[in-house]
């Protein structure tokens, strides 16, 4: 598992992030998230706010974004809640980065279904391109993380990069995607299997076949 401790509280960190504030854009989004909850329950919005803060940090640093301690403190102040409660949430969920990451956060699923379908090869591909688990690559583009099941097992193996999933991967397909990203292009997301749309069965349905054309009532046949 990746190192989930917050980046150390150094004077440099304070210097860089001490004055962090939501931009007008993000502030509007944050206030909208807070408004979803009853008055006085603004704490409930802690997860969206942490996400927004991480995204803003991402924009400012041209990375996926992460949560420096002063930013976590800012969110706590924004929601008028004890900072330890915010840190609890930030350290609990894997999607909050507690250390700087690269522009693309490559999260390769290594859980059994993906592993059986070849995730080892995906790790190899990543490593060949100079990525190391839990570290930012030298060009600042990549951070590699191994994650547990992302719920895409039907289209395994898969990789999540920032906000998008790429499925049905082979080392070659992953390479193509990473190349495109490195060039600043947006590759097709979702399944990479030609002819497949989403996670429908490959080669046509094997069960509930009558359903393909129209709704069919199976109940009489049980």
């Amino acid at each position, binding site marked *: 598992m990746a190192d*989930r401790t917050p980046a150390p*509280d150094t004077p440099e960190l304070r210097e860089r992030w001490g004055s962090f504030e939501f931009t007008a854009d993000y502030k509007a989004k944050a206030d909208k998230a807070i408004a979803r909850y009853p008055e006085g329950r603004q704490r409930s919005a802690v997860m969206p706010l942490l996400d927004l803060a991480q995204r803003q940090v991402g924009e400012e640093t041209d990375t996926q974004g992460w949560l420096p301690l002063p930013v976590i403190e800012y969110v706590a102040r924004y929601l008028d809640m*004890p900072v*330890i*409660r915010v*840190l*609890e949430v930030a*350290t609990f969920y894997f999607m909050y980065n507690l250390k700087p990451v690269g522009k693309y956060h490559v999260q390769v699923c290594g859980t059994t279904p993906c592993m059986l379908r070849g995730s080892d090869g995906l790790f190899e591909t990543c490593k060949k391109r100079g990525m190391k688990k839990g570290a930012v690559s030298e060009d600042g583009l990549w951070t590699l993380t191994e994650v547990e099941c992302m719920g895409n097992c039907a289209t395994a193996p898969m990789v999540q990069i920032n906000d998008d999933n790429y499925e049905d991967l082979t080392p070659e397909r992953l390479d193509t995607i990473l190349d495109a990203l490195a060039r600043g292009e947006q590759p097709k997301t979702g399944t990479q299997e030609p002819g497949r749309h989403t996670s429908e069965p490959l080669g046509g349905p094997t069960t509930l076949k009558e359903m393909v054309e129209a709704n069919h009532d199976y109940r009489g046949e049980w």
Partner: protein
Amino acid sequence: MPKVTVDGQEIEVPDGATVLQACELAGKEIPRFCYHERLSIAGNCRMCLVEVKPGPPKPQASCALPATEGQEIRTDSQMVKTAREGVMEFLLINHPLDCPICDQGGECDLQDQAVAYGRGGSRYHENKRAVTEKYMGPLIKTIMTRCIHCTRCVRFSEEVAGVDEIGALYRGEDMQITTYLEQAAQHELSANVIDLCPVGALTSRPYAFEARPWELKKTLSIDVSDAVGANIRLDSRGREVMRALPRINDDVNEEWLSDKGRYMVDGLTRRRLDKVWIRKRGKLQQATWEEAFKAIARAKPGKSIAAIAGDLVDCETMFAARKLLGAMGSGLLEGRQTGMDYPADNLAAMAFNSTFAGIETADAILIVGSQVRHEAALVNVRLRKAARRGAKVFVVGPQWETTYPAEFLGEDVSVLGNLPAEVAEVFDKAERPAVIVGAGGLAAGAFEPALALAQGWSREGWNGFNVLHTAAARMGGLMLGYAQKGGMAEVAKAEPKVVLALGADEVDWSAFDKSLKVYIGHHGDKGAHAADIILPGATYAEKDGTYVNTEGRVQFAEKAVFAPGDAREDWTILRALADALGVEVGFDSFAELQSAMIAEVPALGVEGLADLGPLPKAAKGGKGKGGTISYPVADFYLTNPIARASAVMQRCSAELARGEEILEAAE
């Protein structure tokens, strides 16, 4: 009231009870770690599993399951036994099993329950996890590998203390309990998490590796660090008090204790007066008791003798001094060392009438001149409970950090005469409005206007007028007449030839230049520095004694250890002094002294709330008075001579109150 069957025994349980409580009512012991009566239910340790029908065919966590009509609960089935063994085995997987070097050993829930409910061996052969130590301040020592994640400490600081600073970071196997950035726990009740922690993860730092629980003699005592009168247990070994722990008393301290009451005990052995001293040519020199008594007799005080009681003295000492003075023909008794002179003829007007348990039910509270966290941390806990139940709290006095929502109405007492309309309305509408006047309020003349307000808001069957004193000796002193009209100034004006200072360390002695100042007390503090003669006395731990808390609750403390060196129990000193001065005081033993005291002030003979009679009528025209409030406690950790002598309190003061960086000694 649902009826349930516990192991075949049918019982009725109160509405809202949990299955665990039902089992307890039926006399069954349910092992538990996370459940605690005074904290919210977490349900995360799974040690309390029982079998319940109707319900899924698996063991259920009894602490989080409501008891309902017709439930059949089994605590003795094979399923329950296996479940407990399983939970215990899992808990111990990552527990270091370092009992021989653990301070919790001998009083550890995990140890006890492992013996009672565990399976006697582990089948786990993998590596255990380890967690780094977390700094939590000068009082709490952490060995986090031992933590079983019950989250009691987290819930205590959030719910009871109201200072949200401990949290559980990370998740799953990586979960760790810590404060934010390992800052020291910053409130007056922080050390209570040590008692709450069911394992040895949070232990007492000052008491680390000092003693084992079974070597200690346990004495029931009363905390004298404030006027709350928390019930404590003094654990001593030989002549030394090793630690103070809270006892359960729902009316007073529930089961908490302030950090000062708990940790000033190391001051009991430091800076002690254990010899008689006489000032000769401006220098204090060692002397014998005889010389000292002779010197006092030589002053020929006659009627011109006064007694000033300090903040920590027991009623017996004060009574003995009063007897002595009475025999000399003097009534110059005073206990309000700092010069306060509120009227003390009506004791009901001087007490915390709502009682601590009662104040929890108040729905509007006006605090006048009290920094409650510093002056009575345990009362602040009650106020927080009241606020959590919806009470509105207002404060007159300088700003301080409350642990509940509170509105500050300014620093001047005059605001009592014309409360803002919205505030007045809250109180007019309240069913149980309460006023709390603190020492700062009394000093600024808030007594009369506050009493007038309380009387305006009087309600049937509810007494909402409260005085919150700061000294353990105050209520007892007032009951024994240690109050002059005019206060200390009056005593000074009388220019007594001899002043007996009974542990009085907060007096401005410059007003007593011409008097022979005899200090009877235990610590070389301010009073002893000013004294002409020092007679070494006993601390609260070294004598039996009666104390009355600010509610007017009479409580009895027992002697835990002997006073050091030549120090004597204070009453014996006063008895001997009577001989030296050639007067009769009418007692020769502590028992005689006590019965004489009870004969004169019968209320002191009955443990529990004293009946102080009805409140007086507020004087007319008191309302308009003004005066700026300031709080008497400058530093929570150093309010009395014992605390000032305590190295632990000194360090707390430096690190927590003054925020100095303390470098950890290399351990």
